Structures are given as C-alpha cells and as structure tokens.
C-alpha cells in the first residue's frame, strides 16, 4: 500500500476510485487503507501548493538557521517544541552540519519576520544564535514548478 501513499503525495485530489484502480485494489480496500493512514498520522494532512506571487497577497518567507546549546537529541526535541508551537513557524527540521535547526517562517512583511526572530525566537533559552535568510523567489516546491504555464500551440499529428 506504499504505492497509495506515493500517489497521494503526488496528488491528493485523486478520488478513491482512481487511486484504487491505479494501485490495483478494490475501492473499499483503498478507502480503508487511507483512513488507517490518517488515524495513524502517517498521512498528516492535505494542503494545496499556492503561488502567492500570482495573487496580490504580500508575504515574505524566511529560512532561519538556528544554533542552540549543544545537547542530546531529546534536548533538541524540547527546544524544538518551544519553537514550533508558534503559528508563524511553517516548517522546521533538525540538521546535521554547521547549525542545528532550520526554521521556515512566513510573515506579511520583513518587519514582521524580523520581529518574530528578535522577540520570540532569539530569546528562547538555549538558542545561541540565528541567521535569517529571506527567500527572494520560489522556483520549485514539492516537485511543482512556480512558473506560469507556457502557452502551447499544439498542432495535432496522427501517430
């Protein structure tokens, strides 16, 4: 049933019948499997990927490198929890390499993001430093390319 997850990850708007036929199982079985995945939180949710630049809504996204006081994995989890509880935090990962946590946040303006970093994130106990990188342009997210569709002038040939 991992195929089912792959398909859902590609396009969660596919109906149960389509998914089932694609995987090659009865619709009832696919439906039950999806329900189970949702209950087990294997499937966390379903969201749309939106190109906000194509509508008038102003927003900025920043990727923040966060360094924390060295600690065991559990310790990272505790400090991470204190950060990701903020609604502003869109995504967050524990990293290998030269910093510890990647925090991705969105705000309406640069100021709003800066305020969050300065007033919320930096003062958290255990956070030793942050480096904020603003995203200038999105090219691709989750395999989807942010680009208006090329107008296609199609001439049909018989093959």
């Amino acid at each position, binding site marked *: 049933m991992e195929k089912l997850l792959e398909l859902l990850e590609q396009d969660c708007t596919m109906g149960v019948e389509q998914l089932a036929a694609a995987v090659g199982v009865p619709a009832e079985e696919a439906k039950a499997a999806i329900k189970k995945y949702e209950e087990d939180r294997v499937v966390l949710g379903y969201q749309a990927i939106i190109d906000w630049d194509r509508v008038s809504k102003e927003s900025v996204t920043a990727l923040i490198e966060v360094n924390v006081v060295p600690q065991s994995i559990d310790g990272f989890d505790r400090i991470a929890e204190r950060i990701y509880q903020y609604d502003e935090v869109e995504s967050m990962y524990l990293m290998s390499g030269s910093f510890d946590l990647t925090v991705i946040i969105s705000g309406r303006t640069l100021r709003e993001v800066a305020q969050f970093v300065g007033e919320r994130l930096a003062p958290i106990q255990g956070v030793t430093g942050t480096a904020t990188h603003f995203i200038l342009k999105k090219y691709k997210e989750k395999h989807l390319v942010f680009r208006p569709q090329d107008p296609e002038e199609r*001439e*049909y040939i*018989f093959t």
Partner: protein
Amino acid sequence: MNYEQILNDRIQGVKPSGIRKFFDILEEMTDAISLGIGEPDFVTPWHIRDAGIYSLERGHTKYTSNAGMLQLRREISSYLNRRFDLHYDYSSQILVTVGGSEAIDLALRVMINPGDEVIVPVPSFVCYGPLTEMAGGVPKYLELKAENQFRLTPEELKSAITDKTKILVMPFPCNPTGGTMDRKDLEAIAEVLRGTDIMVISDEIYAELTYGQRHVSLANLTDMYERTVVVNGFSKSHAMTGWRMGYVCAPEPIVAAMTKLHQFGIMSAPTTSQYAAVEAMRSGDGDIEHMREEYDRRRRYLVENLNRVGLSCFEPKGAFYVFPDIRSTGLTSEEFCERFLVEEKVAVIPGSAFGPGGEGFVRACYAASMKDIAESIARLDNFLTNLRRKQGREG
C-alpha cells in the same frame, strides 16, 4: 501545370488520412481533452535534454558517420543485450535512423521488388501499407480479431501467405490495439515461417511498454534472427518523439543496404539527438520504469472504467492505447468519434483509421494526465447515457 500528370502515380494512389478533420475540429476547441495523439505526455527526462544541450555547448554540430555515432551504436547494442537479450554487432548490424518510421521505410525499400507482397496485420499503425505501395510492393492486409486479443495466429498467417509473399510486418506491442505477442504466440508464428524465405519487419517501438510480461522479440527465437529486421527507437521508451531518434538492427547485408539508402537520402541522423540518445541508453533505464509504472496505473483505471460505463474493452498488455468495442452503440467508429468530440469535447480516434479490422472500435491513448483521463470517463458516461436516451426515443 497538370500536377496530376507530374506527380508519381503511386503517391496519388495513397489516400490521405481521414483523421485530419477531427484534428481540425479539435484545434478550434478550447476546453477539449485529447486522448487522440499517440505520444508520451512526459517531457524528455532532464538529464537526457541536458546531454543534448551540452553537446551543443561543446560545439558538436557536424554530421556523424552515416550509420550513426559509434558510441551510440555501442550503447544501443549493449542496451538491446541488457534488456531484450538481443545480440547485434554495433559496427555492422545497427543503423541509427530518423525515428522508427525511417527504419520501416528503408527496410521495405531495400527488400521489395515490384509486385512483392507484404503481409500487414491490421488494425495497426498506418504507415506500413502506404510505404509498401511507394516501394512498389503490394500490401496484403490481414485482419486481426478482437476475440484473439488482436494477436496474430498461425492459421491467419498461413491463410495470407502466397508465393509472392516477401515480408511479414509484426507490429507488436500494437498501436492501436495494445495487443502483444508472448513467446508462445511468437513460437507458433516462427513455426509457420521456418523453411520459407519470408522476411519479418518487427516494429518493436513499444517494446519497453508492456505490462506484466517483458516483451520478447521475434529475433530471439530459433531460426528467426536471420530473417528479422528489428525496428526500435527512443520516442516511446524515453519520451523523445521530437528528437526523431530510431534505429534498426538486422543481419549485416540488410543493414548495409539500408545504410546505402540512408546515406543518400538522409546523410546522418541529427547529431544533437544522437548525443542525447547516448545519455538515454547509458542512464535512462530508471526513466523507462518510472514512465511505464505511470502508464500502467492509467491503463488499469481506464480499462476498468470503460467496462464500467458500458464499453467492453479487453485488457491491453502493451503500448499506451486502449481499444474499446463501440459496436453496442450502433454507431460507426467515425460517427462515434465525431459525436463524442462535438457533444463532449473529447477526442479519440476511430478504429477504421487503422485499417479494415478497426471498424467497431475506437482508440484512446492513456499517455495523458490522470485528471484528463478521469474527466474523459465522466464525459463518456454522459455521452453514452444521452445516446441511449436518444436511441430509446427513436426506437
């Protein structure tokens, strides 16, 4: 000028395809869905495109050798060995052509003498007959049967052979039916061919697109290698239709003759495409698997749902077409396609376009997005319901 007198009699005898009018209607429509064109909906994988671009950056813009770049022929030889257990010497048995179509044309032209008969199983891709006629041969159409899943049976073949038979075309996996021939089916055909001088043009352009079972080439069977011309290419397997890259493998004298013709008519296949093709052969096996898996999902969905809405459809095991039976609608395949296009804005191709055996069927290509396929099914359901209602009133 009287162009009728100027133009060659044979080309004047070749009828233009009736499909054009559907495409004219289709091109005018804005929200139409086309399951009409037989072409992958994937773009050529990026690493292959990149190899083509890189060759241009490096300035590889000249002719290659007539038969195609040595490194490409080496790669093709190793690919055929790896994937289909076929053994062809890269230096003398492989010719790189401008698509599989050129290979078919060359093969027919180097073998046909005036009056030679070519057995063309139909429904099948439309080029074999006209190209045979242009080469001075006589196409003998052999109608395949839906009840045999559009496979060629030894009995059918025997009934078509005469003392003028020169060539048998083997179009499997088949466009438009999706029919395939497994080893057992091929063995029965080989048995009929053994001891004759009949040559075979085996068009294996869809060889990578089989579902469930790997494709077997006729050339693999005992005594068949010496009589088989294997045609293949990159269009379907690697989503490279526009690059025009095909190849043909055969016993040396046949390839030598084809190379002679190719060097005068074509010179060499496009250089950029050949570089891209090298990359496709070297690191494209994963792309093939990925695309095949995608097609397979769509195939299963389409077959199941065509049957559900009431068009009986055998399960095609190859290519990317389904060929449902529309006889229950009481319409001819052309009427069906025209009405379906006008009323529901979905384009499929009448089976009659693929030769006499195709009437009563239509071809839908599932190399389209799942969304379009699902929408087409909904529209088909609607179309059939309306049709039955109208027919009920009239009846």
